[in-house]
């Protein structure tokens, strides 16, 4: 690889001995590349290699900064007041500081996935060997790692090959992070370009992580019929010992499941999970149960159901140990990244650790050997469960009423409502609870993001969150849903079937619901959106916490989204790819469309492929409850491919949007590859990063953002039909910008012809041509006369 001290690369050598082709030797590695595809222009791109592409996107989609704070306080010059775009002591202004802050978030997110990937690869190489072949779907998946191929220009075949990729990612992350140092970068658009680079790096890191674990752990391999598994708090058999795993790194959970199998205890102990570890646990064993997204973390712990809590990494509450102690559940931390102040017991005999946890001598331990975690967790759970089951942790009704009266007698200060991210009317619900009516508390349970900030601020120290959870105890028991577990990659054969209809617009779009659960009005909105778009024959993808929320709602027939719609990548499918790191399969599908259907060279050819995806693949990401830095980097990876992302209203707290200006005609020209002419194509897609105020606004925007310059007239008519229909259904009128999206009279949906024609006439609409669109002048293929 290029970053090694010694590197010998021979394209072709003929000698007396024979012929050598594509031989590469570097320190510590020997890699023979059998991939015949020609290397593209940007293998292993540096921070600036794709800067020109980024600039094209950023010229069209300008940052709109929404500072969270007026200050910069990252160095000892500060705090500096940057109000009104003033410059601070180092010379930075507000727009640059905001883009720098976003880059920090994206680096954190990308580093998290990359570190996760490194741990998985190191572990799996130790267990299975570096020559273990990658297999993400057998013969159905020829392009096994589209993002690695695209970005790095290599075709990984073994676990060992992934180490080379990780070396590159870690190098780039160090470079990117260094750019955020005081005085390193002074232009907001260059910071934004680096944000996009961080996002691309993140996508590669996610792909590495998931293909490694799919290849060795027997997870579903690109399987549209991945098993339906149980979801919700009500699915847990609370009579059995219950282990809770939280986080994203499945290794400890796998060893728990293996230990149970070895000891023939699989039917005796419940393995339950929260967040992405849960999805991966069910990919490994469908007997594992998913409790819910990360916002379910505190409510499940406070329910008292888990007998032992095992945490790995990412998105775990920092007070999880305190919460475990509150319900007297022994606690096991398993990651170097999340030690929580616990004593490292990795080298101690399992007997001693179990004894200390069971007796309460140690409320929690740190064990950095996943194999040992399996034994300790299971034995501890079995030992403590009988005693723990004797007493509950939820409040009885009378205690809820008594606490509520303390509140109502003390002047209803409203600070709980002011501290609530969604400003839920906690005071009113407490007032009603004081009178014995828990209905309003139960309603709050549905929309609660599970942060418990209400409790933190209560001057009376009333356990408000426990009151909400206790009031909703019956509702928790009724949470029994189904989710199709993570299927992994999209098959090449599926891409061949839908590539044409997507690029030509016959399938109106691919909508991916991804990310965290900081929803403005609860997770039901995600389920409703998924079902609406599946019903309209879009391809719907899900991942991570959003995949869980999509399954936590039943329609009138009592079915969840995953029971109603197939898991295949086809019109009307709801495709759960898996945990956060499986997001790479969604962007990977877009890349594969360019490669397999579009026949564009993939290898190290990022710019051309991104240009293809941006202009032709009607895909939209939706991160309705995006909260974390990982969500920031995931979204950035989609943006660099030119794929728009819609977030909920909390998403404005990411501090900037990337918005197009439909009213500026000059922004919406592309080159026609066939003629070289510049052609106006309308604002498609109109935005790259957009925060919607409500679910309804999001749905209409999603339909609009699926339009692409390349749509055929039939495809554009289909997309306009959905856009106009949703607008009319949800806002009561037809949109006032239809004229911007109609290129020829043939684009107009037949069923709406009269109405739309009138609008077009009023607006002085003129017909334009449909080009073979590209933003890249070097893509023009017009032959010189």
């Amino acid at each position, binding site marked *: 690889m290029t970053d090694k001290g010694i590197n010998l690369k021979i394209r072709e050598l003929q000698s007396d001995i024979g012929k050598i082709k594509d031989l590469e030797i570097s320190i510590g590695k020997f890699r023979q590349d059998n991939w015949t595809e020609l290397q593209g222009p940007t293998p292993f791109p540096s921070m600036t290699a794709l800067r020109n592409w980024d600039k094209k996107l950023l010229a069209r989609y300008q940052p709109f900064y*929404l500072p969270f704070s*007026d200050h910069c306080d990252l160095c000892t010059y500060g705090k500096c007041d*940057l109000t009104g775009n003033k410059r601070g002591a180092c010379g930075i202004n507000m727009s640059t500081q905001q883009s720098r802050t976003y880059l920090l978030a994206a680096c954190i997110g990308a580093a998290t996935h990359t570190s996760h990937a490194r741990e998985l690869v190191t572990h799996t190489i130790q267990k299975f060997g570096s020559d273990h072949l990658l297999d993400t779907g057998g013969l159905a998946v020829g392009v096994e790692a589209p993002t690695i191929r695209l970005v790095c220009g290599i075709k990984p075949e073994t676990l060992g090959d992934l180490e080379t990729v990780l070396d590159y990612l870690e190098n780039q992350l160090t470079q990117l992070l260094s750019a955020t140092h005081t005085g390193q970068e002074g232009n907001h658009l260059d910071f934004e370009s680096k944000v996009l680079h961080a996002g691309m790096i993140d996508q590669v890191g996610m792909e590495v992580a998931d293909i490694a674990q799919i290849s060795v752990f027997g997870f579903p391999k690109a399987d549209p019929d991945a098993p339906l598994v149980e979801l919700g708090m009500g699915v847990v058999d609370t009579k059995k010992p219950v282990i809770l795993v939280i986080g994203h790194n499945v290794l400890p959970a796998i060893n728990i499941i293996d230990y149970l199998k070895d000891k023939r205890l699989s039917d005796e102990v419940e393995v339950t999970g929260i967040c992405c570890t849960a999805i991966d646990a069910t990919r490994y064993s469908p007997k594992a149960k998913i409790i819910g997204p990360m916002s379910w973390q505190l409510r499940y712990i406070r329910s008292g159901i888990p007998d032992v809590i095992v945490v790995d990494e990412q998105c775990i509450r920092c007070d999880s140990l305190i919460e475990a102690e509150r319900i007297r559940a022994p606690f096991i931390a398993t990651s170097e990244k999340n030690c929580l102040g616990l004593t490292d017991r990795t080298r101690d005999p399992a007997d001693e650790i179990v004894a200390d946890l069971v007796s309460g001598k140690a409320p929690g331990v740190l064990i950095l050997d996943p194999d040992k975690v399996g034994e300790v967790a299971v034995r501890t759970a079995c030992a403590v469960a009988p005693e723990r089951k004797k007493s509950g942790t939820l409040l009885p009704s009378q205690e809820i009423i008594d606490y509520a009266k303390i509140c109502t007698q003390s002047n209803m200060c409203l600070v709980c409502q002011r501290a609530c991210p969604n400003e839920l009317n906690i005071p009113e619900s407490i007032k009603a609870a004081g009178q014995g009516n828990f209905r309003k508390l139960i309603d709050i349970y549905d929309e609660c993001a599970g942060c418990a900030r209400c409790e933190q601020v209560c001057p009376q120290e009333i356990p408000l969150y426990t009151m909400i959870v206790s009031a909703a105890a019956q509702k928790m028991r009724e949470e029994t849903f189904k989710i199709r577990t993570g299927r992994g990659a999209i098959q090449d054969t599926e891409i061949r079937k839908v590539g044409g209809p997507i690029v030509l617009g016959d399938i109106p779009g691919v909508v991916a619901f991804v990310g965290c659960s900081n929803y403005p009005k609860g997770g039901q909105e995600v389920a409703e959106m998924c079902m609406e778009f599946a019903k309209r024959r879009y391809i719907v993808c899900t991942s991570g916490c959003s995949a869980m929320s999509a399954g936590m709602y039943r329609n009138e027939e009592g079915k969840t989204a995953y029971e109603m719609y197939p898991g295949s990548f086809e019109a009307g499918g709801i495709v759960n790819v898996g945990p956060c790191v499986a997001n790479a399969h969604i962007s990977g599908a877009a890349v594969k469309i360019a490669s397999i259907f579009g026949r564009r060279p993939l290898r190290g050819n990022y710019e051309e492929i991104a240009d293809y995806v941006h202009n032709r693949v009607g895909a939209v990401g939706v991160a309705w409850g995006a909260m974390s830095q990982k969500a920031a980097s995931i979204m950035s990876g989609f943006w660099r491919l030119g794929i728009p992302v819609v977030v909920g209203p*909390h998403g*404005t*707290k990411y501090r900037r949007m990337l*918005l197009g*200006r439909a009213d500026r005609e000059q922004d919406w020209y592309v080159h026609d590859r066939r003629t070289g002419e510049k052609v106006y194509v309308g604002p498609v897609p109109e935005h790259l990063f957009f925060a919607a*105020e409500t679910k309804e606004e999001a749905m209409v925007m999603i339909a609009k953002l699926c339009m692409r310059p390349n749509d055929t007239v039939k495809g554009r008519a289909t997309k306009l039909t959905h856009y106009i229909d949703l607008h009319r259904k949800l*806002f009561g009128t037809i949109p006032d910008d239809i004229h911007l999206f109609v290129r020829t009279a043939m684009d107009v949906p037949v069923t709406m012809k009269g109405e739309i024609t009138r609008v077009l006439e009023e607006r002085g609409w003129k017909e334009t041509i449909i080009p073979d669109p590209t933003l890249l002048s070097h893509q023009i293929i017009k032959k010189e006369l």
Partner: protein
Amino acid sequence: MTIIEPRQIAGVAGPETASGSIRRAKHSVRIIGRRGMGSMGWGDGIRKAKHPVLIIGHRAAEIDIDDKKMLDYLLELAQKGNISVIATPHTNPALLERDYTKAGIMPAIEIGHRLTDPDWKGIDGKGPYDLAIFAGLPNYMESTILSGLKHFAPQIRTMTLDNTYQPHACWSFSNISGRDWLENLKAIIEHVED
């Protein structure tokens, strides 16, 4: 005298906030101005504006004030003050129920973005706005948009008519009760009409 705090706990913005204290007047609460803006009497800022715009979010159609919705008061203000209205898309069904079809429809985040452009001619095409009055958006979303305008739209002044204190606005109510809110909205509508 009452010390005002941001509605959102920890929502402390920075040095240029509508900070300080509020005085309870005879029947009402004065709007508080950000540094350099000064506190105002009722409707002064609106009356002095040459091209104001009222931006209405969907919550205006949900929130009751006395026996009407917040939206009804806002539309009355727009009508009496001859103020352009831009409603966010999900607000439109409530406008149609009231046969109000004069509003421009645009998502909140797009409105915020366009307001940072000093050359934007406005949704009515009459030229740049000099006052943007916000009401009915989710509190935290309104806060971030107002922050964006505070930093990147120096040519425009901002006001919020929600009953929660928004430190990033040029002018905002403090966190006031429904009764005070009603009283103040009525006073502003009256004053604008004078």
